[in-house]
C-alpha cells in the first residue's frame, strides 16, 4: 500500500490552509514546485518557496524525476497515444507534468492526491501501480 501523499499543484491552491497540518507526512514533487514557482509574482514568495525546496531536500522529501523516469514516462505517454486515450491534438508536453508526477509518486511509495482525478485515471492505464485519490475524499 502506498504510504505518503504527494499533492498535485491544484491541491496546494485549493487546500493551502489545510495542507500545513499534514506537512510531516507529505512528499513534495519538484514538478509541482516548478508549477507553483513559475507563476509566482512576489519575490518574497519566491524566497519562501526556495526555503521550502531546500528543507524538503534536506529531509529527503523532494521527489525529482531521474533520467530513467523521463524515459519511462515518455514511453508510458506514448502507449496512451497508441491506445487512443488522448486526443490527437494533445501535445506530449501537456501530459508530461502529470505523467512525471505520477511516475515519481509510485517510485517513491506515494499516492497522488489531486482535484483532477480523471487525468490521472488515464495514466493508471499505462502505470497500473499508480494510486490516486481525489483531494475532497482524502481530506474528508
Amino acid at each position, binding site marked *: *500500500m*502506498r*504510504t505518503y*501523499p504527494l499533492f498535485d499543484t491544484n491541491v*496546494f*491552491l485549493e487546500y*493551502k*490552509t*489545510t*495542507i*500545513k*497540518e*499534514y*506537512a*510531516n*507526512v*507529505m512528499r513534495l514533487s519538484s514538478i509541482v514546485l516548478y508549477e*507553483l514557482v513559475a*507563476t*509566482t*509574482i*512576489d519575490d*518574497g*514568495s519566491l524566497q*519562501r*518557496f526556495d*526555503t*521550502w525546496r*531546500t*528543507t*524538503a531536500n*534536506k*529531509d529527503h*522529501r523532494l521527489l525529482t524525476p531521474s533520467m530513467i523516469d523521463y524515459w519511462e514516462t515518455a514511453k508510458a505517454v506514448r502507449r496512451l497515444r497508441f491506445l487512443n486515450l488522448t486526443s490527437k491534438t494533445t501535445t506530449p508536453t501537456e501530459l508530461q507534468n502529470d505523467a512525471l508526477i505520477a511516475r515519481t509518486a509510485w517510485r517513491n511509495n506515494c*499516492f497522488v492526491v489531486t482535484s483532477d*482525478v*480523471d487525468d490521472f*485515471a488515464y495514466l493508471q492505464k499505462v502505470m497500473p501501480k499508480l*494510486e*490516486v*485519490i*481525489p483531494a475532497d*475524499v*482524502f*481530506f*474528508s
Partner: protein
Amino acid sequence: MKKKDLPENGLRLRDYSHLPRAKDYPRPKKLSAKTRAFVEATAAAMEALQREEQKRS
C-alpha cells in the same frame, strides 16, 4: 466510495477504501529538526500562496 461499475466511457469508477485519509495520520509527538524545518517552511509557503492569490484577485 466502493463502486466498481463500468460506465459507458470505459472508465472504472474508483474504490479508494485502501488508501489513507488525512485523518488516519497520527499527530507526531516529536519531529526531527529537519522535519520541523520542512513543516515550518510548508506553512510559510502556503502563506505565500495565499498572498499570491490575493495579488491576482
